[in-house]
């Protein structure tokens, strides 16, 4: 019975869980947080460059979202609503940290890193992380939204308030700089 109940909870839709939270079921909010911690934590981690800041931004976003749940007009689109809050929390955390501490030291141009061997993948991801840290914040944000979160430019415009042309320019510059830093010469 307990297993069946647990499966039911896991398979509950976002809208169902939001409704339960609104009725006072805090455990349902725990399920929503678990559902989106890894997916949205990935964005926060890559934007902010470390686990501690990512957790802080995520915690802030979850808390704000809970307190504002009455304003979530489309519970079936809870994820998109939460992501908008997270993007802004990441901006706040990133700006604060950018002034308090140096981020991970940007790398100088490195030699191309092979990724054919699975054992090298983790190292390659670390290289990418360091290269991302070398980008201006707005380019890093645009790159992650475009290629990691796979948003359309239209969605990015709505999320960031930046015009489409400016976003394309940011993504273009981010790609060019990352290629320099990672020593990737596709041509």
């Amino acid at each position, binding site marked *: 019975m307990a297993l069946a109940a647990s499966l039911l909870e896991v398979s509950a839709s976002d809208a169902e869980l939001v409704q339960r939270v609104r009725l006072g079921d805090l455990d349902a909010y725990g399920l929503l947080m678990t559902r989106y911690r890894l997916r949205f934590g990935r964005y926060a981690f890559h934007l902010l460059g470390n686990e501690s800041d990512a957790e802080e931004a995520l915690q802030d976003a979850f808390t704000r979202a809970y307190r504002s749940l009455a*304003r979530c007009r489309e519970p079936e689109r809870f994820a998109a609503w939460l992501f908008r809050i997270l993007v802004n929390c990441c901006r706040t955390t990133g700006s604060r940290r950018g002034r308090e501490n140096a981020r991970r030291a940007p790398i100088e141009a490195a030699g191309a890193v092979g990724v054919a061997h699975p054992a090298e993948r983790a190292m390659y991801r670390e290289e990418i992380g360091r290269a991302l840290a070398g980008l201006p914040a707005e380019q890093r944000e645009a790159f992650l939204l475009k290629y990691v979160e796979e948003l359309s430019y239209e969605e990015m415009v709505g999320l960031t308030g930046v015009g489409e042309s400016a976003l394309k320019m940011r993504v273009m510059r981010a790609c060019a700089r990352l290629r320099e830093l990672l020593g990737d010469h596709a041509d």
Partner: protein
Amino acid sequence: MTMRIDEFPDADADEFGRRLGSELQAPVPLSDRVEQRVLASLRQPGPAGRTERRPRHRQILAGAALAAGVALVFGLGVLTGRRTAPGAPAEPALAASQPDVRVVEFALRIAADSAVTLVGDFNDWDPRATPLRPASDGLWTVTLPLRPGRYRYTFIVDGTRWRRDPAAPRALEDDFGTPTSVITVASR
């Protein structure tokens, strides 16, 4: 190297971006302590586990904000009257009995075809939450009850154009290229 926006996305750069993006799509193993902290905070007594955050930046007096044309602070409490089940999330209850609650007027003078809305930390950047009302001569206004604190905000004109408040300080978060203003509501 001079880059032109009309040349993007070129196939090479786009393919490179997608390849890098796919590497970064692997899960990042953040622990469940995030949920634990949030749940612990929400279970604390108080209005929906509200967590107070101290403003990190220098506060300005509400009077100074008024003088700067940032906002008009009327200093009136507002009773929202929302009903929620015990323990359910609620928007921060802004009651007249809470002396710190201020009513702030936001205003923007701009030629808009259809609508001006206000988005910010106080409404989770929801573009539908806080529409401004047109007054005269292209002036759009709205009032909001706010607790003391620092809030980032901006206006959205006709659903697409983001406009910073020209009379308010620029937010530090402008690092991300979004035109954002900041207001600090002082305690009484």
